[in-house]
């Protein structure tokens, strides 16, 4: 029987109703309960949503090949679920550096005309953008 399966984080709601994070990607079965969850893939509408968030647009044929590649990559990445990291602190910086403070003082900086020298459009010492409101 086909059941609607919601995609929760990297886990899968199995037919038994449990959230399973232990998947074997090849046959998309759960290691623990051997339930036959369907591997829910990133959908075209999700790709369109993420494309909007990242300010990109794709034509329909582009979206298709893109979703195949993204699914391959995300499928591979879900390998991390094999590891129990519940007791592990995350690393966001490779070295144990504390904040690098400096005095809050005015120093010479690039002149306005140099700062604007690469702008696609400029006027009166500022960047010109399309009308917003």
């Amino acid at each position, binding site marked *: 029987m086909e059941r609607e399966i919601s995609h929760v*984080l*990297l*886990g899968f709601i199995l037919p038994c109703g449990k959230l399973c994070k232990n998947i074997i990607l090849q046959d998309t079965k759960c290691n623990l309960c051997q339930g036959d969850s369907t591997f829910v893939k*990133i959908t075209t509408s*999700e*790709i369109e949503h*993420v*494309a909007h*968030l*990242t*300010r*990109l*647009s*794709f034509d329909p044929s582009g979206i298709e090949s*893109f979703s195949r*590649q*993204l699914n*391959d*990559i*995300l499928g*591979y*990445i*879900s*390998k*991390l*679920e*094999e*590891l129990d*990291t519940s007791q*592990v*602190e*995350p*690393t*966001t*910086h*490779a*070295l144990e*550096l504390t904040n*690098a403070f*400096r005095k809050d003082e005015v120093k010479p900086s*690039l002149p306005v005309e*140099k*700062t604007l*020298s*690469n*702008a*696609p*459009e400029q006027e009166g010492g500022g*960047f010109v*953008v*399309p*009308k*917003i409101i």
Partner: protein
Amino acid sequence: MPSLIDLSIHELHDLLIKREVSAVEVTRAYLDRIGEVDPKIRAYLIVTADQALTQAEEADRRLKKADDVTPLTGIPLGIKDVICTRGVRTTCASKILENFVPPYNATVMERLEAHGAVMLGKLNMDEFAMGSSTENSAYHPTHNPWDLERIPGGSSGGSAASVAARACAGSLGSDTGGSIRQPASHCGVVGLKPTYGTVSRFGLVAFASSLDQIGPISRDVTDCALLLNSISGHDARDSTSVPRDVPDYTGSLIPGLKNYTLGIPKEYFIPGLDPEVEKTVKQAVSSLESQGAKVVEVSLPHTEYAVATYYIVAPAEASSNLSRYDGVKYGLRASNYKNLMDMYKKTRSQGFGPEVKRRVMIGTYSLSAGYYDAYYKKASQVRTLITRDFKKAFEQCDVITAPVAPTTAFKLGEKADDPLQMYLSDIFTIPVNLAGIPGISVPCGLNSSGLPIGLQLMAGHFEETKLLTVAYNLELALGRCEKWPIL
């Protein structure tokens, strides 16, 4: 006398200070060489001939007065096009920065300038340093000087190919997941990724800020130490640069490995590793043993998770870093847009190539609402496990020895349609970046088809001196490579 382009940086320096050659002559020799071989390998995006000759004249004045002369004075170098060069276009091999002319120099460029080094031009790369083959350049691929049908590696493919082809005396690259070491290995040259925080990232166009480091690519280990000397050190303009005294790295070029223990991680010798690469790397380790080193087996159990971890962390950081390309402050702005949102989307869709789009999409997805814990946080936790593996291994050994890449250079186009396969080719180089430790690739032989193989050496944070000592001894044991590709 051998041709000027055949000499290493330290050999050229000897001739320059004796005034047997002038910096202008050396620079002209390299510009001629570029004219001769670059149409075949296409390592350069821009050759800055006039500026190079002006810098060489200035270097000659310094050499003549014997005033303020350093080992890099008058030495012609190539620079990866991800490093900002004042007044010289810096494109990151992307269409979105096609006309970007930085109004300032990266800190490494200021340092090289202060040393009187000469810049020959800007070198090709994968767009925004995202790739392992230099095929992702928006302009043209670069060819491996040892076999023009093959990739030079990436993302610093131009930096490695130009050194191997003797189209510069040395170069700078950048390494986020292996982008210095892997092309160095594929091109048969020396490439070092310093400890995170050793070299200022100010003016290095950001890809993944917690992983990026600039480093040297050179003909031999001595040149590597000289280049590292010139670019290392604290910079107040990069808050992640480490306030720490920089040693003279040439001091580590000493024969003998009597007190050294080398570790061989069993997780790096896996199915999928090319048998010829495995054999050559193991022979290299044996030759280090004959220099006095002790060899032990070590374990880095989380190695198999490194690629997955990296392909969350790096794209997540990239999606944030690359949001600055919005068609407002610099770079491309698309025409014919309806409103601001349309301008953003058209600009970015036209300006970025497919691999950059893939990565910023993955990054945005993994940071988006509901997915952050499962992806980014999870990956950051596994990053801790990978770092702990190294800490534990370095309790047993000084330097870890391993292959750089599972195979020698592959053919152009071979992996272009399968991004995941391309990502997996970085499996042995990525852990170093995640842990922030230094790594070096040193040539250790050619395979039966004449393609170079590199030995990777890894050490603890700020242990570059140990890496250079072991690398130098490998060079002594194998004899410096005098065979260069014929072009």
